[in-house]
């Protein structure tokens, strides 16, 4: 996916800061560059600054400091209606007093486009989202998913090069959401549009994006493609926020040959990959994905450190089994295993030993 993205900077944030009250910064020193055609998702909990960034880009908020550039041009002082950015809103913002056709016609009319051109473009845009039959309906007569499609068509009908989407799928049910996720990415890539997508749903971020920017506390915690984000989180916030994650707390004993020896708080020793720990004596939070935990001793590496664990709960989930363990005083340690014919089902109360590959165990900041 990343190959299709050219390297010219299309959208740039340079040292952007934003404060509403003059006392606290909502966005702290943001630097971000998007090449043309990229699908970038801003992911983060509410209040992390992601929506503010989107609004600054759209022009509805002004940056307190720093510069935002679009296609090399500073746009800080350009009003929103001259930026030529398409936008899809959380509640769709379809104009209730206009029909679908009129809604789509609106951006073309303000651009003084002729009637026949308008009709052609409206038809094309509605075709794109398979909504051509609804051109004379009003938004209130459509379902949520249909409104979503129309909102998308409206944002694209005037052929902007950049489209912003502010949690556009938040109001849809799960199935529809998954379908729309696919359609949106498909459309964005086939039209070659640069997209900035805001969400707090990590699954959405992982499945749709070329790159994901994880926001917390006004700062981008990590900017990476989805696989890297999941498999190699750079700090414990990202590790916690993306996917399911087991954490154990301890102190670094030594770092040697790219392996960190960590003594957990109950005294046990484990091998980890040091990510942002540098010297012995540092406190660390160790992160292991549930599906990378192994309790079949035969599959473990020779000489690997193992931990004692007690099975607390076994949950059958169809495609996978989910087992809750007590490990090193942590009652919420989860192990996921595939539902395969030879897979063991662990009974609660069983004492086992668990282990993992050192590279799956990441020693992060405390």
């Amino acid at each position, binding site marked *: 996916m990343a190959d299709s993205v050219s390297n010219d900077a299309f959208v740039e944030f340079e040292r952007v800061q934003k404060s509403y009250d003059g006392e606290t910064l909502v966005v702290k020193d943001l630097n971000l560059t998007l090449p043309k055609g990229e699908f970038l998702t801003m992911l983060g909990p509410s209040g992390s600054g992601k929506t503010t960034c989107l609004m600054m880009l759209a022009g509805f908020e002004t940056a307190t400091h720093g510069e935002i550039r679009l296609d090399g041009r500073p746009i800080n002082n350009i009003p929103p209606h001259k930026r030529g950015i398409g*936008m899809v809103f959380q509640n769709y913002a379809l104009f209730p007093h206009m029909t679908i056709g009129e809604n789509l016609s609106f951006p073309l009319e303000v651009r003084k486009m002729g009637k026949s051109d308008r009709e052609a473009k409206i038809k094309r845009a509605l075709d794109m989202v398979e909504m051509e039959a609804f051109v004379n309906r009003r938004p209130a007569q459509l379902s949520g998913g249909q409104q979503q499609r129309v909102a998308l068509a*409206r944002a694209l009908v005037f052929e902007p090069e950049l489209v912003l989407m502010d949690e556009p799928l938040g109001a849809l049910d799960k199935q529809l959401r998954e379908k729309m996720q696919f359609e949106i990415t498909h459309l964005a890539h086939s039209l070659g549009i640069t997209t900035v997508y805001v969400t707090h749903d990590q699954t959405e971020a992982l499945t749709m994006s070329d790159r994901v920017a994880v926001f917390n506390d006004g700062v981008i915690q990590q900017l990476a493609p989805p696989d890297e984000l999941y498999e190699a989180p750079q700090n414990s916030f990202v590790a916690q926020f993306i996917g399911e994650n087991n954490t154990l707390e301890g102190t670094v004993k030594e770092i040697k040959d790219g392996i960190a020896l960590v003594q957990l708080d109950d005294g046990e020793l484990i091998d980890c990959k040091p990510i942002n720990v540098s010297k012995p004596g540092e406190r660390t939070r160790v992160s292991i994905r549930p599906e990378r935990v192994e309790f079949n001793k035969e599959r473990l590496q020779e000489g690997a450190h193992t931990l004692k664990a007690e099975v607390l709960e076994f949950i059958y989930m169809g495609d996978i089994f989910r087992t809750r363990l007590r490990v090193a005083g942590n009652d919420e340690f989860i192990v996921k295993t595939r539902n395969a014919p030879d897979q063991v089902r662990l009974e609660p109360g069983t004492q086992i030993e668990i282990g993992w590959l050192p590279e799956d165990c990441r020693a992060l900041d405390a």
Partner: protein
Amino acid sequence: MTDTSGPLLAADGTPLKKRLAQAMFRSRARAFGLAFPLIAFIIVVFILPIIFLLWQGIYDARYSRLMPTSTAAMADWDAVSPPTEEMAAAMVADLVKARENKTIGQVATRVNRELSGTRSLFTKSARSAKKMEAPYMEALIKKDKDWADIEVWKAIKIASVKYNPGYVASALDLKYNADGSFERQDEDRRIHLMLFWRTIEISFLVTVFCLILGYPVAFLLSTLPTKTSNLLLILVLLPFWTSLLVRTTAWIAMLQAQGVMNDLFVVFGLATDEDRFSLIYNKTGTLIAMTHILLPFMILPLYSVMKTIPPSYTRAAKSMGATNWTAFWRVYFPQSVPGIGAGALLCFILAIGYYITPALVGGQDGQMISNIIDFHMRKSLNWNLAAALGLVLLVFVLFLFWIYDRVVGIDNMKLG
């Protein structure tokens, strides 16, 4: 499913529709029971008195009740041929009775309303009616030659009509004649149509001023954070905390010739001390004071509608390339129309019935139809005419509602 054409049956065999109606009845009865005290209250203290009062606009049995013989004798008279002896005899008989019952004053007042001067004619004649002998017409004329005037008898004939269109006619500046025809009122007594028109004109202007002043305020209120907007909303409602009379009197102090506004105009050289502006006791005063008083009734519905318009609509419009004005005019404004409709209708209808303010600051050309109704209620005691005027006003307001419903649609109105 052997008989698909028959009605659907419930489990116990009764038709489903009937079962449903029974089940619904209980909940309906409960709902009615809860609302009943209010419904009864409204019917007793509001609807019935209004119906009773308006009824007087078309029904007046004072003469026919107090002078039954005369009423019967006049029933077939064509109001063209000379009055008959039979009518005179009935008149004398009723006059004698009316004097005995001390109801002659009421009768005289009633007939006097149709023809000035007949009050004294009736009271005088009643005093000597007992001594009169046949032929009665001559006896009456001997007592007072006015009895020979056919106009007197025509007035009596009109007064004797129970279901009397005369009051409604009078409310429309028409005259109801004894022969049942209508004609326009004498020019120097025409007043009501002109006042109805002025009432509409003033109400319309007040509504427009309220809209012009209220729309930006409501817009501001709806965009501010709740904490600030609540505070400002209290300021908007502040006028409701003082009595209408106090507010109106305050305007007198502000606007009169020696008042605050004129003093300021003189200080700033906009007027000379001798030639101050007439801001009050005329239409201007009525417009200013009524706009102020009705402004909250415009702002509140507007605010409640605007509050529900998400800012994302205008943002969406702007993101699609619309200027601030286009975004407002094509996207925001159409969605605030239900608020405008509700506010304007509220203001207009309240303005149409206003009378304290125009009475106090209206002078002579700022008076409205309600002031005339008030005059007939309190001063002339012609409640029948007051009721007829009220009836015409009510019909007009209902007509407006109908127009509004046809043009905008009542269900498109939002009162918050």
